[in-house]
């Protein structure tokens, strides 16, 4: 038996609030692993991703759900993607690496980011105050993803539904980011 035990405490763990027309919460146990496509090995890597997740890696700026609906593949750039899924233990990276069988480079990004889910009829109105990306459904459809800057903080925004967005921002500044989103909700309520 080890003498000491570690407890997990992500910066926004347990946050879940409802406002007038907006719900804001930190998803539980969200794991993120980055996938880099080897130069010259892109075809093999995309094939491995497809066979592991039952879905083809989409174009940059897009995301898709895996066939079983449990993982989201987000293409960030020509040679980089994230796979986002629910996974409680700190071994998300080996878990993904195993599925890809060495066809791509993987790096654990779970603790690099802090996630917030914002949803509801007024979610877009609140995000207008910090997000320079056009979030109109015609311009940013379900599954669309963009890395941008909100209140000076690098953010990955993904539309996960009609009025629902997943926001990923650096975990060290998670509290400042939460404050920025809450202020936007307050200012537009």
């Amino acid at each position, binding site marked *: 038996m080890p003498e000491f035990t570690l407890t997990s405490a992500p910066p926004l763990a347990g946050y879940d609030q409802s406002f007038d027309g907006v719900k804001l919460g930190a998803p539980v146990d969200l794991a993120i692993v980055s996938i880099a496509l080897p130069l010259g090995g892109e075809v093999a890597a995309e094939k491995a991703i497809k066979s592991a997740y039952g879905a083809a890696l989409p174009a*940059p700026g897009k995301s898709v759900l895996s066939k079983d609906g449990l993982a989201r593949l987000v293409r960030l*750039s020509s040679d*980089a993607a994230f796979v986002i899924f629910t996974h409680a233990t700190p071994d998300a990276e080996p878990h993904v690496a195993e599925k890809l069988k060495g066809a791509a480079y993987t790096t654990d990004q779970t603790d690099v980011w802090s996630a917030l889910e914002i949803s509801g009829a007024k979610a877009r109105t609140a995000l207008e105050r910090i997000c*320079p990306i056009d979030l109109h459904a015609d311009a940013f459809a379900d599954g669309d993803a963009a890395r941008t800057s909100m209140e000076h903080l*690098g953010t990955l925004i993904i539309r996960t539904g009609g009025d629902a967005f997943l926001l990923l921002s650096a975990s060290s500044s998670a509290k400042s980011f939460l404050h920025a989103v809450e202020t936007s909700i307050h200012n537009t309520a």
Partner: protein
Amino acid sequence: MIINHPHLGPRDAAEFIYLGDASLIDRPDWQDENATEKFYEYGYLRNNPAGEHQELWYHEQGDRSWLVVTRNTLTHEITKVEMARDVARARGRSK
């Protein structure tokens, strides 16, 4: 300004970092005969045209790609945006 990213579409220039003249891609060979002279020119001498200019922009708050943007410095009109990696290859930087 708006930079029309080849992969991601139009993005606010605020997401980008400006570096300067795209001639910075053309790094000299260290084993060239006049390497010191060439590196001096590479490091210190830049064209500063009033008009069309090829320049390097980095999409730091985006996909981390380096772009070569052809921009008119008088009007800010942007006529071409390319992935710097493709430009570098086209300029013979492949191994």
